[in-house]
């Protein structure tokens, strides 16, 4: 099992409102060309004076350059798009405390939380919402609308049952305003309930501790294992038994990927979170890192405190845990990383 930490840190709180806060690193990646309507993907922003200024080829060549730039940006994004490769799963995404969180596992076509809907999230068919804080759920309407725009099939969205109605209301408002269908499959999945995503993949939520109702999710792979008592039989005999209706296999669920969302560290002690801790990959938050905030402060706000430099924390934790500890710090800027 690998223990991976997603790094979310609270952005510094400026004391005055006049200085704009340092812009957080935003993954504004141009969307991959999955569209049926390639011509609508480019809209160049231009700021022009009165129409007379448009005459002359200077303006058009500026547009031409802008188009080339867009293509270049796309290509570069393809190259620099790095995910984390763990146990055969690549993990991508963004997590900035208070701003947006969205962790994507492309192999499972899944996004955990949807923050502000980074472009990569649109291609995922499943979205799991851990809790209703704006920086985790805010991108939901955008996500559904963008999929509709690209004629992708309606997605499946999982939420804690307590917020199902609120999410429906939210979409009703968006439907009224944009007069669009905004189709999607909303599944209220409670802790302990199991949902079959595909024929070999199921998901089950587990309890986490945050300031508002929240839950984490564990995704299991399902495989059938031949029961011990039949192992010695030949193929044909197994076929016969199967046809006669005998259960010859056991269904084994192996937890593959688990995501906690925002939580205090209490969930680690909950025996019902055992599956999450057994998962091949556990993605957990670590919002508070330095001594500037106390552990009490972190718990009050429903978060986990690592209490030290992320690199030190990783190495300390590594000593205590048999799993591999990985810090998801790619693209993350702070005084703790280079």
């Amino acid at each position, binding site marked *: 099992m690998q223990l991976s930490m997603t790094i979310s840190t609270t952005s510094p*709180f400026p004391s005055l409102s006049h200085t704009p806060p340092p812009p957080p690193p935003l993954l*504004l990646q141009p969307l991959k060309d999955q569209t049926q309507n390639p011509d*609508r993907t480019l809209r160049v922003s231009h700021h022009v*004076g009165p129409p007379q200024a*448009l005459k002359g080829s200077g303006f058009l060549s500026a547009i031409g350059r802008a188009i080339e730039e867009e293509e270049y940006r796309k290509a570069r994004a393809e190259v620099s798009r790095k995910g984390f490769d763990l146990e055969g799963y690549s993990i991508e995404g963004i997590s900035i405390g208070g701003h947006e969180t969205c962790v994507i596992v492309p192999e499972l076509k899944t996004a955990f939380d949807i923050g502000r809907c980074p472009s990569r999230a649109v291609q995922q068919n499943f979205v799991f919402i851990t809790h209703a804080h704006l920086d985790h759920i805010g991108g939901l*309407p955008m996500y559904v609308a963008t999929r509709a725009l690209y004629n992708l099939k309606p997605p499946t969205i999982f939420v804690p049952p307590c917020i199902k109605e609120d999410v429906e209301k939210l979409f009703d408002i*968006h439907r009224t305003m944009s007069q*669009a269908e905004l189709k999607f499959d909303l599944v209220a999945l409670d802790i302990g309930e199991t949902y079959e995503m595909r024929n070999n993949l199921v998901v089950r939520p587990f309890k986490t501790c945050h*300031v508002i109702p929240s839950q984490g999710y564990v995704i299991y792979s399902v495989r059938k294992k031949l029961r011990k008592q039949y192992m010695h039989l030949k193929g044909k005999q197994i076929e016969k038994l199967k046809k006669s209706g005998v259960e010859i296999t056991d269904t084994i669920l192996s937890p593959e990927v688990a995501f906690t969302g925002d939580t205090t560290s209490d969930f680690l002690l909950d025996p019902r979170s055992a599956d999450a801790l057994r998962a091949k990959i556990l993605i957990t938050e670590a919002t508070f890192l330095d001594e500037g905030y106390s552990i009490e402060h972190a718990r009050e706000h429903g978060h986990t405190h690592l209490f030290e430099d992320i690199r030190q924390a990783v190495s300390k934790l590594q000593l205590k845990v048999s799993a591999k500890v990985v810090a998801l710090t790619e693209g993350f800027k702070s005084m703790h990383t280079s």
Partner: protein
Amino acid sequence: MMIEGYPIEGLSIAGHETCIILPTLNLAFDIGRCPSRAISQQFLFISHGHMDHIVSSSDFPVLLGGLPMYVATRGLYRMAPPTIVVPAAIKENVEKLFEAHRAMDHSELKHNLIGLNVGTSFGLTLNSAAFLGEEFYLRKDLKGYIIYSVRQKLKQEYIGLPGTEIKNLRSTGVEVTNTTTMPEIAFTGDTVSDFIFDDNNVDVLRAKVLIMESTYVSNLETVENARDYGHTHLSEVEYL
């Protein structure tokens, strides 16, 4: 990018997000996905195509998907509640939108929401250092918004008088200045090109800076296609 003395930033990607920012005026047009620069703007104006022109299902998330985020992030940074101006027609729905998010997020999401009808104006008190002392007001146009500056210009008959005399005149209640309004910035949002020919929109074309969309750029889309979706084709702009 600097045009006519106004720095302009932002992004506009068809079907995804639109957010045009004028930092010295402390305002943004549309909020798209709430790019970080938008958060420090105190005023936000949401444009809105005519009801019969909204065919694309993603128009609203494109214009105001980031709206709750904008307000929430300002709250997070303890900034003053922003002033958001929307077409009167959608004001109620925007209020409902915030209600829905308040219920889920359990946060205040404080803001001033103003619905403007076409032709009505709204005074802007800017905290902008660049325009200290100047007044601006916003007028809702048929398609978008126009920002006018209000300047006091000394009347012809008083030009050349020494400062103290002007002060005396003023204190006796004489009107020594003319109030001139100048359209500074016009923003149209998504629109068909017809507005240019509409006589009521003279001010739009008189503005120092006109920000208009030109969603269709290449020859692959025809002008009819563009108009069908409620947009402008670049060739039409050229034609002008």
